[in-house]
């Protein structure tokens, strides 16, 4: 049985101490999520954690050997995170006055409704993170890249991090979040992010998992106000065990959210994406396209819910899930849901899974490609449409390069 106790935090306020204790008590009562809970039906994180750890240390030492390798492909501002903590910030001069970033403090934490037990756990044990604000009317000239690196030595520890992004009125930015894990695995990563988009903010958020060896739960809550628009692009591979929950609240009229996710899963990798797209105001639009390619005995899950509140008339919501299963040992589960209380809306969803099209393979092979080349080309094509939605030429090129590389890793 896994033994978890609250460390004796020093130098914290009485209020924080109380907050942590209260959350810890709730967590102790409820424990890790179990499969009986609909949201956790396909991801048995409790078992995974209990089998992986005999104890979890929530007070890890900060790593001073930080990695600072920059992407050479295009000019950008950079923010380095090591094991979830801010280590280095380098903003291009043109954008310096437009960005404010600082370490997360207890006072930055806003009360969140209906947190699941891992959110509660995060409240009890959070150890850092950051708050970033893109100022009003600021239009970032250069992409902002977060290098989210994890150290080699991480072992038997639990990291609970909070990342808060505030995109103020009329701001616009391209954010690239590159997750790169150099550890041998065997740590638990519990991330809790907030994206707050104020009126007319236009944000493209690219989330790239190059390598992720942790047992990872990542929840994102996006709050989108009037005329604001969030495009979230997720590209994932080499990810051992991840459940990513994406809760979007289209809070005010004419707001928009697009989510695209591409994942390649191999060996015994596990990735669940759960999205809850809540249309809470009229004239909002949402578009979701979730694609997976599964190989070996990987497991992929997509749970996607579109919720339309009674007053959210003229909602336009779309959701599509597609999976390619390259052999019989893979598992793919999809649970699309619509919950609609308004009567003048356009909502549709679709889900498909299957093998590669043998006719297409034959066609390509008859042109001299061997089976692997044909397969790789088809998978590249399967993922390619995500790139067509990107307006930033250099980011687009970079992502296409990643997609091509990943597609070529398929055997």
């Amino acid at each position, binding site marked *: 049985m896994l033994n978890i106790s609250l460390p004796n935090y020093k130098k914290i306020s009485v209020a924080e101490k109380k907050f942590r204790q209260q959350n810890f008590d709730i967590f102790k009562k409820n424990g890790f999520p179990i499969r009986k809970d609909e949201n956790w039906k396909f991801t048995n994180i409790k078992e995974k954690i209990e089998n992986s750890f005999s104890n979890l240390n929530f007070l890890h030492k900060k790593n001073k050997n930080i990695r600072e390798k920059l992407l050479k492909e295009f000019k950008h501002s950079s923010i380095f995170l090591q094991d979830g903590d801010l280590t280095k910030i380098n903003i291009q001069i043109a954008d310096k006055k437009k960005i404010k970033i600082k370490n997360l403090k207890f006072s930055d934490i806003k009360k969140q409704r209906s947190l699941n037990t891992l959110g509660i756990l995060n409240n009890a044990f959070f150890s850092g993170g950051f708050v970033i604000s893109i100022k009003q009317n600021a239009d970032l000239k250069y992409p902002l890249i977060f290098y989210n690196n994890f150290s080699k030595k991480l072992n038997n520890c639990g990291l609970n991090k909070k990342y808060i992004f505030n995109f103020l009125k009329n701001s616009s930015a391209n954010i690239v979040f590159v997750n790169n894990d150099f550890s041998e695995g065997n740590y638990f990563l519990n991330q809790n992010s907030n994206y707050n988009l104020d009126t007319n903010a236009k944000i493209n958020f690219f989330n790239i998992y190059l390598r992720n060896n942790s047992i990872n739960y990542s929840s994102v809550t996006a709050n989108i106000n009037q005329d604001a628009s969030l495009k979230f692009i997720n590209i994932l591979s080499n990810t051992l065990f991840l459940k990513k929950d994406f809760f979007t609240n289209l809070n005010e009229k004419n707001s928009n959210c697009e989510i695209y996710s591409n994942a390649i899963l191999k060996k015994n990798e596990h990735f669940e994406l759960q999205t809850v797209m809540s249309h809470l105001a009229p004239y909002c639009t949402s578009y979701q396209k979730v694609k997976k390619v599964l190989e070996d005995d990987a497991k992929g899950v997509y749970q996607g819910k579109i919720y339309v509140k009674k007053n959210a008339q003229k909602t336009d919501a779309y959701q599509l899930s597609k999976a390619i299963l390259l052999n019989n040992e893979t598992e793919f589960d999809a649970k699309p849901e619509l919950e609609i209380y308004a009567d003048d809306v356009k909502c549709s969803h679709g889900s498909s899974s299957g093998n590669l099209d043998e006719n*297409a393979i034959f*066609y*390509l092979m008859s*042109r*001299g*490609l061997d089976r692997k080349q044909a397969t790789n*080309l088809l998978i590249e094509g399967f993922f390619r449409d995500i790139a067509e939605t990107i307006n930033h030429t250099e980011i687009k090129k970079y992502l296409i390069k990643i997609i091509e590389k990943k597609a070529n890793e398929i055997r």
Partner: protein
Amino acid sequence: MLEIKNLKASINKKEILKGLNLNIKAGEVHAIMGPNGSGKSTLANVLSGKKDYDVKGSVIFEKEDLLELPIEERSRKGLFLAFQYPVEIPGVSTSNFLRTTLNSIRKSKSQKELSALDFLKLVKEKSAELNIDEKFLSRPLNVGFSGGEKKKNEILQMKLIQPKLAVLDETDSGLDIDALKIVANGVNTYKNKSNAFLIITHYQRLLNYIKPDFVHVLSNGQIIKSGCMELAEDLEKTGYQKYTNA
């Protein structure tokens, strides 16, 4: 170049080709005509190595047992099939596909891969010959192409790959007269003494533009009559019945 002896092919235990014999020499153009269901497309598929068929008999291509070769090696050895229904492949741009396929074939022949620039030059030149708009190259392969564009794309591939033997499976179907002329012209300008064509068609129409040296009638899985252009003209007038009932 190609020697087919007593070729039999069945799918789901249904025999479609029932002992087909055919010899094609370099420099020749052969046409195979036949009614629906006579086995024309099966012949094309079996030659290019499509799975699903149970195949017996022998096919020697350039002194090698074709039936033993995997699909891609048949192509690399110089066999080309222009598909009746070219497959739509979303996400893969036509030029990316053409370059991958061309380089894969060049590599197998120990030739140097084409640089992006050289490839572009070559593909532009060949596209122009077929009246293919450059924009078409950046579109996903065959997706949303008209019937004519798909067939022109097949001929473009043929001209890039430069096979020894090209099998055209009903390349004329779905073409208007202008496209038909362009496609035929594409074939005629490629034709030379060292390559050969096997043209599979329902109608004589295409053969007015690509003159065959031999015309064969395929019926019920066998070639029941061979002749020259007059045979095609006769078929056009009288239909297949006279031959298939014989």
